[in-house]
């Protein structure tokens, strides 16, 4: 079996660096940051880490049902494709900033993209 992007970029420590960059972009983005108002930053960062780990093909136990349940309250508040696109944009930019190759970014984006319908409750 070929190595996952997660393993190729350096595992958990690399993902930690990515979480800071990624979460900072998300919090600074007025298109989406209102969805994060009042959330506990440590817990949120842990979720971002789990998300990035999954997108990078690392160890995770996420199911489509988890994604659906976890975001249902946000869908009620108007979470839609434009917000999902914004997050995808930040994912790509984060990995690029860390020097990840375009091929690997494409692989990560494809995994993240596969959660779109569950996240948006479609």
């Amino acid at each position: 079996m070929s190595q996952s992007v997660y393993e190729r970029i350096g595992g958990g420590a690399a993902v930690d660096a990515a979480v800071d960059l990624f979460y900072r972009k998300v919090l600074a983005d007025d298109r989406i940051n209102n969805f994060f108002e009042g959330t506990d930053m440590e817990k949120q960062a842990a979720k971002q880490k789990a998300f990035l780990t999954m997108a990078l093909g690392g160890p995770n136990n996420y199911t489509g049902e988890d994604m659906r349940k976890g975001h249902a309250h946000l869908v009620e508040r108007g979470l839609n494709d434009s917000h999902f696109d914004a997050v995808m944009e930040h994912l790509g930019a984060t990995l690029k900033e860390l020097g990840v190759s375009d091929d690997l970014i494409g692989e990560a984006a494809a995994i993240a993209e596969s959660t779109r319908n569950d996240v948006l409750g479609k």
Partner: protein
Amino acid sequence: MTKVVYQGRSYERLDDESVLRCLLRNGIRAPYSCESGACQACTMRAISGTPPANSQEDLKETQKALGYFKPCVCRPDEDLEVALLDDAHNHKYQMEVVEKRFLNDEILRLRLTCDESFEYRAGQFINIFKDDLIRSYSMASLPVQDDLLELHVKLVPNGVVSHWLCDDVQLGDQLTVTGPMGECFYHEVDSTEGLLAVGTGSGLAPLWGIVRDALIQGYEKPIILCHGAMKPENLYYVEALRQLEETHENFNYFPCVSGLDEDEVPAGMSSGFPNDVAFAQLPSLAKWQVFLCGHPDMVNNTKKQAFLAGASLKNIHADPFVMAPHA
């Protein structure tokens, strides 16, 4: 084969078995989830022995300093004595009150001694038990310098425990205490550019310990402490902090007053909330260590401000300072 020691019992590890699997196999109910070192749900503490580096990868530096490690990916070459993180809540200490003194109208300084050895880091907190109520108080003392354990108790309106400590507890009384807890303490990290401490009210307690700890350990980069209150008379330790500022070139102290018009703020004090005073002079916090303590809104807002200003989440230290619901 090496052993894992937990609560006085030894368990032999099987070939290539993780510390977590060894404990689970022996019926110890340890929490866990991913079993691949990613989620940190199983994080434990090593009491003796050194966990291998891979089992501490991507933990906070302060957690590593406390011996935290991830048992699911831990296969040590030596015996390891471990504790679950919840175990810190189980041992009750008796501490004697040896000094009570009001620092201002609303803050009481308590100094305590403990018969047993009680090891802690400046900035950690303890829980005090009063009947079935429990309240957390940060320690302001620095173990290498202060013989007595010091707490700053804010008198909370209708606060059962703070009023009991202020009004009823006498010198010589014994308090029931658990701890120490918390990851908000100074830990030297080579690559940091400076240390920012922001607190309101009795949130100065842990910062008073942390700043002195950094100075005594020879930290040479800038240290900035912003302590805020509504009125000048609500601040305390102003003179002691100014003295510390005079004797340490890299330490700057900003007493901040948020409840007066700018022209009413006394000379030598800053006008505004302590986090705003801090960020006005620090455009970037990249590679800074940040310590926050005080009102939950201030802590949460400042945490976000610090993170957006470039501080890594791993370098932002704040223990939850939760207000008890009024009885």
